[in-house]
């Protein structure tokens, strides 16, 4: 009996949500000038401005500040059946099922 993975459809979500108490007004009066909310020049994501959510535990996700920008990354895979022998060829395959 081979190793078995049973992952059906998977959807990964990374959401950074504006915290309620810090929510600006969103109504716009015809090309109203916008002001900077975050340029991500800090070392860490500001928890007072952003809320990270993982809405799908089946995907692998990352959020970080890198190079003065916010980096969001997600990978998800779907497999139903036997895993092929050998080393996975994708980082997303690192969740190898139990042997």
């Amino acid at each position: 009996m081979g190793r078995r993975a049973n992952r059906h459809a998977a959807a990964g979500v990374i959401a950074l949500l504006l915290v309620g108490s810090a929510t600006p007004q969103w109504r716009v009066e015809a090309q109203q000038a916008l002001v900077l909310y975050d340029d991500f020049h800090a070392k860490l994501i500001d928890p007072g401005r952003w809320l990270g959510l993982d809405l799908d535990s089946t995907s692998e996700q990352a959020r970080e500040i890198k190079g003065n920008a916010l980096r969001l990354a997600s990978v998800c895979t779907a497999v139903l059946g036997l895993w092929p022998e050998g080393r996975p060829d994708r980082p997303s395959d690192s969740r190898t099922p139990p042997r």
Partner: protein
Amino acid sequence: MEAEFRVREAEADSCSATPAVAAAFISGSFFNGGGGTPPNNRTNDVRAGVTIRRASDSADPPGVLRGTAFLTKCGDAQCTVNPTLAFAALGTVSLKERVRVRVEWDDANNQFVFQFGDSPPESLGYGPPDVVLPAQDAGVNEKSLQVRNTVSGCTGEQRSAAFMDLHVDDVRVNAVP
């Protein structure tokens, strides 16, 4: 609100007729058309946003992603049913290319206005709602930046996979809290 998006990597491979999709989003709930109650009932929350996506069945050359504006309304408390009210193609962008993406609620004209890089603004209208409750009275008051990938199930030893690496910079809003 607006932000600068730069998709550094995007891959989507599907094992079936259902395409895999790697996508970035800037979106949010802007108002409630009546029936939603904070903090959890999202019924009639109106959501708008822009997605930049690469699908496994794309006919575009490698490294090209498509921008699309969308307008949806939540059909139930959890927003598991959220029919699209309108959508519009905004243009294309290449991997590693920076693009400014903007979403505006023009409530005076019952529409949202979207900007995608240097492309002309695109607007999507909605029928005048009976009630317009502002965002803080929407079921879920959120604006978000997302990477959201979708893959279908497979059989045998085939695999579906979707991956996106997104960099976001200079998020701007129309009023600082």
